């Protein structure tokens, strides 16, 4: 992350490999080598790229469209376009971000054939009034009537079953989010893209993507709280 006060670039070329020889840089060097081999038609390199990036593309596609079939189709289309133009990948961004960019472009094209101009009406979604917490949960003085209830489960490194349960509950709750919130949350919190990347990929301002992320996280918290068994504080 750039230091506070550094000019925020919105270009996806933010994460350029440096020459410091650290782990992240090694990874990028490996990625570039793989891309070069894949562009030259090396089957093993193509397979490695698909193995690595296909799950993330599926997750993002599933957040962006309404059905598994549509997501599969979109991801396949994205791979075809990606391999076709891979020789033009300059390594200015991470490959995954570049792939997400192709995916959103394919989706935009598709939607424009149906008369839609953007991926989602982000501005309308932001303009809608939505609080992180139901106002009824606060007193007139602005204090919690009752503390937040414990969540149905939480991340605990030592308890694999609880972690799996949390993942299942979260996945179900994410599926019920409004589309604009879902896309932002999946990119930011699942795929770990930064605010500038999300802003550029989705064509939404950084401020608006933050509003959507905020609401999405709050909805997920509420969903996990609502599913919690009664009683017993954390």
């Amino acid at each position, binding site marked *: 992350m750039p230091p*506070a006060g550094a000019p925020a670039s919105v270009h996806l070329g933010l994460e350029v490999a440096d020459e410091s020889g650290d782990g992240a840089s090694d990874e990028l060097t490996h990625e570039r080598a793989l891309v070069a081999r894949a562009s030259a038609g090396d*089957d093993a390199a*193509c*397979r490695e790229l*698909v*193995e*690595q990036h*296909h*799950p*993330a593309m*599926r*997750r993002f596609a599933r957040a962006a469209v309404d059905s598994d079939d549509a997501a599969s189709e979109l*991801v*396949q289309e994205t*791979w*075809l376009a990606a*391999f*076709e133009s891979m020789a033009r990948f300059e390594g200015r961004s991470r490959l995954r971000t570049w792939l997400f960019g192709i995916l959103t472009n394919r989706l935009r094209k598709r939607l424009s054939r149906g008369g839609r101009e953007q991926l989602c009406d982000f501005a309308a979604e932001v303009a809608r009034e939505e*609080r*992180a*917490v139901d*106002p009824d949960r*606060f007193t007139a*003085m*602005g*204090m*919690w009537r009752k*503390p*937040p209830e414990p*969540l149905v489960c*939480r*991340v605990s490194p030592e308890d694999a079953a609880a*972690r799996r349960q*949390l*993942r299942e509950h*979260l*996945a179900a709750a*994410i599926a019920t989010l409004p589309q604009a919130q879902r896309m932002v*949350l999946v990119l930011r*919190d*699942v*795929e*770990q893209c930064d*605010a500038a990347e999300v802003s550029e990929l989705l064509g939404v301002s950084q401020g608006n993507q*933050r509003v959507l*992320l*905020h609401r999405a*996280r*709050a909805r*997920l*918290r509420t969903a*996990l*709280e609502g599913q919690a068994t009664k009683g017993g504080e*954390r």
Partner: protein
Amino acid sequence: MSVVFLKCPEVVELVTEARDDELGSWMRLRYKAHLIHCRSCRRYVAQIDDVIAGAAELAIEPPASSDDCDAILAAVRRSRSVTPG
């Protein structure tokens, strides 16, 4: 909004900006001061942290299945074979 003291409904709306380090220094101070004395808001923030940590875990998936890879690579080969040049 009070000039100094934030109320709980205000604090829960600032959590994401605070995490992204987008609060001004004065607001950040008020936010932190509220959390020091409000156990319920601390719990709320901890729960949002749990949601974020849980969401990150959704990315821990096995690599794509061999069938998925085969299907994609076969489609790529087909497309290359019909592309002129």
